[in-house]
């Protein structure tokens, strides 16, 4: 593969950012005008939301289990094993729940969107849609965007709950802690700002998952090989963007709530 000149590379990157921004802006703009594809939105909600429940439940639960085990080892040295619940709930609600849910849903759905739209692109179905008078961004991107943002919000709550339940299970069954105390310290540890932080992050992650997946799908060229490349790129970019966005939102929330 020939090396691109720095100038050509910079132009390519700026061009991609511009295209991505335009696609995102048009997808958001389409939400405020008719026609709206409500049925497609519910179909996507079913696929993205309910389809992702098993992986989110399992990931959340076992992350909570591991977190409790690891936390107990460190807290034991300070004689503070009974603070395990506090650590598990804070970690799950503020950080691990939103980020892991974003990454898991990204792996499952960004790839799905990129490959589905990419296949439609290379088989001229996107052109056919435009030729038949339908805006593909309105028909394909906007429903996925709404579905991702809404469902990721609820999936994160499920992940938080499952993580706390996993931590409780390990604390009670393996660490022999009191279940009531675990849940009490978990609950008391959380403040308003923590919950807001944990529930704002999935809104950004959902936006990234849908727009990045659709962007790479719609710019696919080069047949089935191109579809594979788009899918890989979409998952990588979405995953990195979710973590980067998590950092920025955390900074913002610390600035607002002071913790």
């Amino acid at each position, binding site marked *: 593969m020939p090396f691109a000149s720095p100038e050509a590379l910079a132009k390519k990157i700026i061009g991609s950012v511009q295209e991505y921004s335009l696609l995102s802006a048009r997808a958001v703009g389409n939400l405020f005008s008719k026609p709206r594809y409500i049925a497609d939105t519910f179909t996507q909600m079913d696929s993205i939301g309910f389809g992702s429940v098993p992986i989110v439940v399992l990931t959340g639960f076992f992350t909570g289990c591991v977190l409790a085990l690891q936390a107990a080892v460190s807290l034991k040295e300070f004689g503070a094993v009974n603070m395990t619940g506090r650590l598990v709930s804070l970690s799950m609600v503020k950080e691990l729940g939103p980020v892991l849910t974003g990454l898991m849903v990204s792996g499952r759905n960004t790839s799905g969107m990129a490959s589905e739209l990419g296949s*439609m692109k290379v*088989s*001229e*179905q996107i*052109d056919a849609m*435009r*030729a038949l*008078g*339908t*805006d593909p961004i309105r028909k394909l991107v906007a429903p996925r965007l709404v579905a991702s943002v809404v469902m990721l919000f609820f999936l994160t709550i499920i992940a938080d709950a499952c993580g706390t339940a996993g931590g409780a299970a390990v604390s009670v069954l393996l660490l022999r802690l009191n279940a009531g105390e675990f849940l009490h310290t978990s609950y008391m540890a959380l403040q308003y700002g923590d919950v807001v932080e944990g529930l704002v992050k999935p809104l950004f992650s959902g936006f990234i998952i849908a727009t990045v997946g659709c962007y790479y799908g719609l710019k696919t060229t080069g047949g089935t090989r191109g579809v594979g490349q788009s899918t890989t790129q979409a998952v990588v970019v979405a995953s990195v963007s979710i973590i980067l966005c998590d950092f920025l939102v955390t900074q913002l929330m610390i600035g607002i709530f002071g913790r």
Partner: protein
Amino acid sequence: MSEPVSQPIVEFRHVSIHFDENKVLNDVSFTVAHGETRILLGPAGGGKSVLMKIANGLMMPDEGEVFIFGQELSKLTENEMFAMRAHVGMVFQESALFDSLSVEDNVAYRLQEEHCPVQETHDRVVEALRFVELEKAIDKFPSELSGGMRRRVSIARAIVSKPDLILYDSPTGGLDPITSNTIIELVVKQRDVSKTTSLLITHRLQDAFTLATHRFNQETGHMEPIPDGGIDPSTQFLVLNEGHVVFDGSTEELVRTDDPWLRSFIS
């Protein structure tokens, strides 16, 4: 779309487009009159499919102007473009059927988007599928159809809304001669029964000349040669080579050309 009959349905004025360093269309100008069937010929890679996509606003030229139904495409907003496309049917090279939808939903797609009543939509879909003799495949999915059947469904999808202009992008490409003949018969039927203006790309010269020398007999329901070696006057040719228009004229002018490249191309 109520444009004056004298006004061309399609008009390209000095259209050029290039991808990277490669100039795919170079100063292309031509018109397609009302009721005319314009056949686009030329070697593969000559810019025919790009020209077809420009004619439907799916691509925009770098230079020049394109008028469809008298409207200049570059001056239309995205929504106006979608409204313009409601009057244009397009048959894609690889059919481009929506593989997640049944044949009925594929053909009904545009009518559903226009919120046509359910019963009327169904009746019009059945009528379009009957035109391409595929009404029994109404409940099938594209993956269950052969290449020729997919192409026929694509034609049904293009004609279901009774468009004023049909764009056929290599409707016989990759098909066996018998199936190709069936598709060409459908194109002739559409031309002679509905008198729809059309732009058709083909790589098969025999298909082009079949179109020029045959007509559809509505009594027998079959295509037949025009008597006394006649030629359909509404069928015109446009030949592209390396992005340039090398011929623009009637069937007689094409077969009597003195241009050595054209003679070798059509021989």
